[in-house]
């Protein structure tokens, strides 16, 4: 029996051996192992853990969980995990732990029964039986869940239908100003255009004034230098305006003209 249809497996089928152990064909399986003879590897791979394997051993031989014939089950369990080891299946530590638990229960059962004060027998199998029953409940529940109608397997939804996005006269979303300043700072650092200590409070004022001056110049051909210098802005305001003009001249954006030595200074767009 093959679960994966690859050439290697097909060959195995032809050659009869069930599996290869340490390179040798594996032909003999323990006689009392309840196992469909052609399903060895698949079966061993298919257990979801030691409880699952135990449950299988119990069920497949029609034992009652409550009667749990520990001796028989332990023997078979160990045969299974030996096989798993030989087949180099990845064997979780939990399987070994269960083997130890079974062995412990088995040895306890061999000891003479000691009755406690209440007179009740303390069955060493009780805890394992409880775990098996609980696991079985949820295993059954998982099958029930799997058999529920499930989307995209048993029923289908309508797919999202496309629509045309109608552009509204929305206001543009603003930029995050904090982010803007950080981006600027980073750009400056990148280009070493501005070292941090050069940053001055007036920085923006000068720049803003430069834009204001450019705007003034757009409407008039010539502007009197004095019109730009607004005395009501105070000393620092005057300095800012003056610096703005100097900066604009430096940037070759404006021209400064003066007819005579003592006549008014005019500014015009270059």
């Amino acid at each position: 029996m093959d679960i994966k249809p690859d050439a290697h497996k097909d060959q195995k089928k032809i050659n009869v051996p069930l599996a290869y152990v340490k390179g040798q064909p594996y032909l003999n399986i323990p006689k009392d192992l309840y196992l469909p003879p052609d399903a060895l590897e698949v079966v061993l791979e298919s257990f979801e853990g030691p409880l699952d394997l135990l449950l299988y051993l119990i069920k497949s031989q029609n034992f009652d969980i409550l009667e749990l014939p520990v001796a028989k089950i332990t023997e078979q369990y160990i045969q299974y995990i030996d096989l798993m080891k030989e087949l180099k299946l990845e064997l979780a530590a939990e399987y070994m732990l269960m083997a130890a638990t079974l062995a412990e229960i088995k040895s306890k059962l061999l000891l003479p029964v000691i009755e406690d004060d209440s007179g009740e027998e303390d069955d060493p199998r009780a805890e394992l039986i409880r775990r098996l029953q609980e696991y079985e409940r949820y295993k059954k529940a998982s099958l029930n869940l799997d058999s529920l109608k499930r989307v995209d397997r048993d029923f289908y939804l309508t797919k999202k239908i496309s629509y045309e996005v109608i552009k509204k006269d929305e206001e543009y979303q603003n930029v995050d100003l904090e982010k803007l300043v950080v981006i600027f700072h980073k750009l400056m650092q990148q280009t070493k255009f501005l070292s941090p200590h050069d940053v001055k409070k007036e920085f923006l004022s000068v720049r803003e004034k430069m834009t204001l001056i450019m705007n003034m110049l757009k409407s008039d051909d010539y502007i009197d230098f004095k019109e730009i210098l607004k005395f009501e802005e105070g000393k620092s305001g005057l300095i800012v305006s003056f610096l703005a003009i100097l900066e604009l001249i430096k940037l070759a954006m404006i021209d400064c003209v003066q007819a005579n030595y003592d006549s008014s200074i005019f500014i015009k767009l270059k």
Partner: protein
Amino acid sequence: MLEKNKIKKIIESLLFSSSYPIKVKEIKDFFSEEKVPSNLIQEIISEIEIDYSKSGVNLRKVSSGYRFQVSEDCNEWVTKFYPEKPQKYSRALMETLALIVYKQPITRTEIEAVRGVSVSSNIIKTLLEREWIKILGYKDVPGKPAIFGTTKEFLDSHNLLSLNQLPKLDDIVELSDQEIHQLGLLEDKKNSDNQSNDQEDFKNENIH
């Protein structure tokens, strides 16, 4: 005010263009701006439900709202039309899911205690990505393990309105022989008749 017929058209278009179920409240809120009375909305939704009851798609109420889905008697045809097979989940995943469904809120350690094996991270990841389970919080014990529970999406995916509609755990009786066949071994044997399915299954387990 909007005409009733126009409102109906709009509600239809909303239901069809949504990728998730829509709550009646969302529709009512949406139309309250237009001063559409909320009882009219309810009336229209009921009308749409009837209008489509004989068509290839039906309006259906699920846990998180209303959605259209393929009518029951067309499911097999849709399955047949699409060549790709649905994802098949491993037994380990289904057992983990069952424990989360029936024993929620539950931690991974508690799941492992019942299953007797460790739960692979891929299984938890798959269930979280599928949005069938979510982290409800973290348990106040060393390691602060996540506490898992199911989602509305899980209910929606199974056409359930609430967890109460799930088969009861208590209903689960001793397994019959026939059921044993469905379990583990014989199930595997049966699957082996369908090689492509098994291969897919195997692949899935590795991926998860």
